[in-house]
């Protein structure tokens, strides 16, 4: 499989170059083919995966060696790009602006006399940028390679044949309540819920009641408020039911109507019913 893989020769990408650029020769104006009308920029931007991608494009476009970037020219072109970009999408421009700042910094450092480091060696300010560009480029090409790997439904389909009565062979996994509790504990920890006190015994009975209420309310349109309460559940039960009603109101699945002051209060479920949930009814 891997033998099928081939490297893209980076230099062959540049065939559409309309003019030659001699390294080191300063040029006075932007190449005309680099101009992008602002209205087309949005489309162009989607073609770039970020500042590194854009930089790579500019370098390749001029057939330059990545290891010897002429910072000045590249910076100029780059800034030209983001000037256009800035007009359109400030947030997106931000990531590009950071890169512009980095380019400017490299440029200024190259202009200054090179300070010898403690070991007496000189640092090329471009080194870090070159490293990042190379690093990005190898994953950019790895992404293309992965895109070419055989892929289900594009290049092959996993086959299957019909088996009579297959369902009866498959026993569902056994589950331990501890597993569920541990899962819940973990998901809570992950979500970092600050409302730890919310899930307590009472709240659960409220949740339980909420489910019951929705069940009751699915039958008719309007229920009188009182009919939702069952006196046999005692004071505690009535409070729980009341809390459940409030909770459902809060999550906007109940509608509450009172036509006159001190008049009858009616409750209606706003939950929508359809045929699907008949299947979901427990046996």
């Amino acid at each position: 499989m891997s033998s099928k893989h081939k490297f893209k020769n980076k230099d062959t990408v540049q065939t559409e170059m309309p003019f030659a650029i001699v390294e080191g020769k300063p040029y006075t104006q932007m190449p005309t083919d680099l101009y992008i009308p602002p209205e087309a920029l949005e489309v162009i931007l989607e073609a770039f995966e970020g500042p590194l991608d854009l930089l790579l494009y500019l370098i390749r476009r001029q057939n330059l060696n990545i290891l010897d970037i002429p910072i000045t020219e590249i910076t100029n072109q780059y800034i030209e790009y983001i000037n256009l970009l800035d007009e359109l999408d400030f947030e997106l421009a931000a990531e590009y602006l950071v890169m512009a700042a980095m380019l400017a910094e490299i440029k200024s450092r190259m202009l200054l006399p090179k300070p010898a480091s403690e070991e007496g060696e000189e640092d090329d300010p471009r080194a870090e940028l070159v490293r990042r560009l190379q690093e990005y480029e190898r994953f950019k090409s790895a992404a293309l390679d992965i895109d070419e790997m055989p892929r289900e439904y594009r290049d092959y389909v996993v086959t299957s044949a019909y088996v009579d009565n297959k369902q009866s062979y498959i026993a569902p996994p056994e589950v331990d309540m501890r597993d569920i509790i541990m899962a819940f504990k973990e998901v809570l920890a992950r979500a970092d819920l600050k409302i730890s006190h919310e899930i307590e015994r009472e709240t659960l009975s409220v949740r339980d009641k909420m489910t019951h209420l929705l069940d009751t309310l699915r039958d008719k349109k309007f229920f009188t408020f009182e009919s939702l309460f069952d006196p046999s559940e005692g004071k505690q039960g009535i409070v729980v039911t009341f809390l459940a009603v409030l909770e459902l109101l809060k999550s906007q699945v109940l509608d509450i109507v009172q036509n006159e002051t001190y008049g009858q209060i009616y409750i209606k479920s706003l939950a929508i019913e359809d045929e699907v949930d008949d299947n979901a009814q427990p046996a």
Partner: protein
Amino acid sequence: MEIKQIKNIIEAALLAAGEPVTVKRLLSLFVEQELTHNDIAKAIELLSEDFQGRGIELVEVANGFRLQTKTILQPWISKLWEEKPKKYTRALLETIALIAYRQPVTRGEIEDVRGVAVSSYIIRTLMDREWIRVLGYRDVPGKPAMFGTTKEFLDYFNMKSLQDLPTLAEIKDIETIMPELDLGPKSDENEKAFQNQFKNNNEEE
């Protein structure tokens, strides 16, 4: 186009479709080759003969043609699913836990807490197992279903009501409780002991 090639394509198509395929649909695969009904019929006949000595066979059912495993091999095939059933994924356990504790809850709300998407597969599995059901649909854009647990869910875990679920305070203590528990293969006894642990804990509060 050679008949052998047509046969191969039909074989691959029937096995890829995962459902019965009509002659008309098979014919549509060959639009560029301009095959006729007859070509397909001929290829199907030959293909059917090819399968004589093999593990699968070609049958025609109401909705078209399909390939199925031979009944005579059923004693072996059925063993495929005999081995210990797979365990549920963490994603599924988290989902059922959130539905139990937060019902009525929509898929979006579960996703908000979990931080990742809940796959349809998980919902379907829980539905198939009759552990969850749709309580209704929330009247917001998209009309998301609100899920809740079923009586079957409570029965499976030996609970009378959702109130038998451990409270958060108890869950927090679970590390101190767990080591005392026999974590070996679950039996009803263990389960009960576990439940009782929570009961006692509860009463102390």
